[in-house]
């Protein structure tokens, strides 16, 4: 069986990984193809909210039910990726307090635990939240670390025999009569092309699912809904704070690892690869942040990024992307277009990625002749075997016994030299940007100002790259980092960026590196 993470890098990165992982767990021989790095797609770019379902309780009850069910499962099976922050829905002065009644009713109807608490209690828990809030509700939202989730799925899949091919592009699907029998793939790094034969191909390419489906002459109408997020330098809130109103732009602020994230916007984009960040959208998020946490505009924004949601439309046209259901869609192309061995799973959201994989692999089982039971609701992901929930202090605690026992290469994210060297070896990568997604290298306030020189030196000293390669990945990293930084550059982050300019240009003189 073959899971395609598709032509493009895929929005539902972990969804597809989970398909891979799920399929591998059920004993199928599985290969996953991803055009870029794992976690470089939509999953790696989502805001990090493990929904309780509260957000959908009024508008999309079936999505809410799915969310709370998956929320409970992931706290066990993906414990290492979940921080039990709790969630808070608040009615700010801009929100109709009566919506709270609908909200409570919706939560009751969908089985999402929700409890109204006194405003004073909410402000005690979250002292920075706008003191003008009029109502507050607790829900079991949590923070979900997308990168850890993706790597956990990948490791689980690999442990069960799956092969994962990042940086491989699907050039074509092989169709034999009325059946997809494999894919024609090219390595984006080495350039070699080869064929993969498969009994079933699962298209989990998210917003790019239409492009993959076309290769098999099938039609999947997926629209790309771009969402913008901004990471702030530290936790302005300790719980996932939502506006208690119908879902809209910039109404979620949640802690994610050492940062906190405000999101999101939602705009149709014609091409999922074209996600230009507009100043208006940045301002919108900052203004909405200011409503939730007064002083937000003076707080330090670290970087901004956009993810592309796959919005599946089967029939009726919808004007607003927010009106598209957030439930997923499983398309069996044998019943739709008479193409067997080919399934598309799309739509959905990260919180329900496991459920989507289960559905897709169940359908694949049927085609492979006989259901093999799904175990992903019980078997923990690699890294989560101890069922210990992630805590923000983990990395600090790990350094605590002897804080200066070894070099800390990335001081913002507390990454040690041995941790870096092990990762470079294990994942056999020479790209600083890949290491960033694996370890969170350079994700902190200085955005690589200090650690990137060190990491490049270590890559080179370890023999992984020659001098030209080390220089190139350093320069590539500066370019890549700038993409996320330049849209929000002001205040303290501009001060940092200018110091980084002095370091890279004034002191190290990277502009004149021999590449």
């Amino acid at each position, binding site marked *: 069986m073959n899971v395609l993470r598709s032509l493009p890098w895929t929005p539902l990165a972990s969804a597809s990984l989970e398909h891979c992982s799920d399929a591998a767990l059920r004993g199928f021989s599985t290969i996953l193809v991803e055009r870029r790095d794992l976690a470089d797609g939509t999953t790696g770019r989502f805001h990090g909210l493990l929904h309780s379902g509260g957000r959908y309780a009024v508008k999309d009850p079936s999505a809410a039910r799915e969310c709370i069910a998956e929320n409970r499962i992931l706290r066990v099976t993906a414990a290492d990726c979940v921080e039990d922050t709790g969630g808070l829905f608040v009615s700010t002065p801009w929100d109709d307090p009566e919506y709270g009644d609908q909200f409570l009713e919706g939560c009751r109807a969908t089985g999402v635990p929700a409890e109204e608490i006194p405003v004073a209690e909410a402000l005690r828990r979250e002292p920075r939240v706008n003191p003008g809030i009029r109502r507050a509700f607790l829900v079991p939202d949590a923070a979900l670390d997308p990168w850890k989730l993706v790597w956990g799925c990948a490791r689980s899949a690999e442990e069960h025999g799956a092969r994962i091919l990042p940086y491989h592009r699907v050039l074509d699907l092989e169709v034999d009569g009325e059946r997809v029998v494999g894919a024609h793939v090219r390595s984006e790094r080495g350039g070699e092309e080869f064929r993969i034969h498969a009994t079933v191909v699962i298209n989990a390419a998210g917003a790019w699912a239409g492009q993959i489906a076309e290769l098999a002459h099938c039609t999947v109408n997926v629209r790309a809904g771009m969402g913008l997020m901004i990471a702030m330098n530290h936790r302005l809130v300790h719980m996932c704070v939502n506006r208690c109103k119908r879902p809209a732009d910039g109404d979620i602020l949640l802690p994610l690892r050492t940062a906190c994230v405000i999101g999101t916007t939602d705009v149709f984009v014609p091409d999922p690869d074209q996600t230009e960040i507009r*100043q208006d959208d940045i301002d919108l998020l900052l203004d909405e942040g200011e409503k939730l946490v007064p002083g937000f*505009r003076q707080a330090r924004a670290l970087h901004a990024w956009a993810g592309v949601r796959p919005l599946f439309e089967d029939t009726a046209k919808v004007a607003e992307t927010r009106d598209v259901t957030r439930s997923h869609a499983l398309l069996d192309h044998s019943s739709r277009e008479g193409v067997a061995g080919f399934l598309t799973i799309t739509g959905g959201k990260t919180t329900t990625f496991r459920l989507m994989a289960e559905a897709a692999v169940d359908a694949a089982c049927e085609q492979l002749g006989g259901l093999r039971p799904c175990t992903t609701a019980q078997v923990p992901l690699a890294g989560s075997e101890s069922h210990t929930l992630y805590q923000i202090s983990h990395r600090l605690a790990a350094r605590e016994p002897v804080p200066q026992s070894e070099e800390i290469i990335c001081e913002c994210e507390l990454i040690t030299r041995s941790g870096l060297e092990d990762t470079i070896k294990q994942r056999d990568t020479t790209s600083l940007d890949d290491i960033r997604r694996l370890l969170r290298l350079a994700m902190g306030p200085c955005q690589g100002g*200090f650690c990137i020189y060190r990491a490049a030196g270590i890559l*080179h000293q370890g023999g992984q790259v020659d001098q030209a390669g080390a220089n190139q990945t350093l320069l590539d990293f500066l370019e890549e980092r700038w993409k996320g930084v330049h849209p929000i550059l002001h205040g303290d982050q501009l001060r940092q960026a200018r110091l980084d300019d002095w*370091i890279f240009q*004034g002191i*190290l*003189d990277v502009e004149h*590196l021999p590449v």
Partner: protein
Amino acid sequence: MSYDTVVVGAGLAGLTAALRLSERGQRVLVVARGVGATHLAPATVDVLGYLGDTQVASPAASVPVLISSSPNHPYAHVPAEQLETSLEWFCTKTAALGYAGNLDENLLLPTALGVPKPSALAPRSMSGGDLRAGGRFVFVGLKGFKDFHPTLIADNLNHARLPNPIEARALELVPPSSRRGDLSGRVIAGGFDTEDLIDWLAGALEDRVDPDERIGVPAVLGLRSGDATWQELEKRLQRKVFEVATLPPSVPGIRLSDVLSSALRTAGARIVLGVRAVGARAKGGRIEAVEVVNATGTVSYPVSSVVLASGGFASGGLELDSFGATRETVFGLPLIGLPNTDRVRFAPHYFDAQPLATAGVATDDQLRPVDASGSPVYENLHAAGAILGGATPWKEKSGTGTSVATGYAAAEAILTPAPTPVSEAVR
């Protein structure tokens, strides 16, 4: 106390101005939020390293070219002879560090990435790394010191374009057990100050370096003892040894700051850190007192003259808010180098020309910040260093040169034609 001049900022420009004023008899107060960027930059004096993409061989010859193409450049307000005088004066004041080099030829010193970088002056503990003559080099790393990667330096230098061929290699030493773990440059330097690290280093290098090799070490050879350690090492090894600037913090930069601060104290100036200059009380186009926030609140220091050396965006002398407004943070001075659009949009590629790169204050020839009409904002306010607009010093490699030249020139503008009478304390 009443002071003749209050200098805002304790970086290279501020210390230079303050020292020049103090040694000429002024009573000077330096106020700063903290220590200056001296602690981050290598202690080289970079006057001009690049004109656009072209490497500058002679700053003396190229500065006039720069001025003609960038009339707002800070150097445009420093006459050529004063630039030279300021560097000579700087070398005298920092004799303990033994600055080598001159304005006519840039040295080419290796960076911690192994890029040959032009500098006009360097302390003698660093100047031996001049790559122009070519030859054989060995770069020595210390295990556990993350801010210096000799293998990459050597490999890059072997691929660098240089006037004469060089051959570079790397060597990694394991420091004695007292210096293991997550070592900072400051901590290693402390080891050279207080322990016998020099014995260890000299011993470790003796048999591992050829007689014709020059030895590049990270710039951590001691803080107070830096120059002495370097001399001793050359003597013991009978080879040319030189320090290479590391990632910040910069040990040679701290040495420079210490030398200048100590000279200032000797000259009777007062340095107060951890306070914030927040504005001026002005009358008739003159600043009468500088307002400073300390532990209790705002206090005023009556003054005759003020030097603003608060730095650029990196030091907080300039700020851009989330609505896109740029301001000078102490006196709210008018700025040049702002984008014409109502909103700053940074260019999408890192190495593109970026907006605000040349933002800062514009001055007259006495280095007094001027408004749009070219008139001084205050008769007795002068500016120096990175707060000055019209330059992109990290690209030009002109930061420290600008600081020394404009710090000195601002002091001279205050001292001549005639020092204004000292105002009485008014608090």
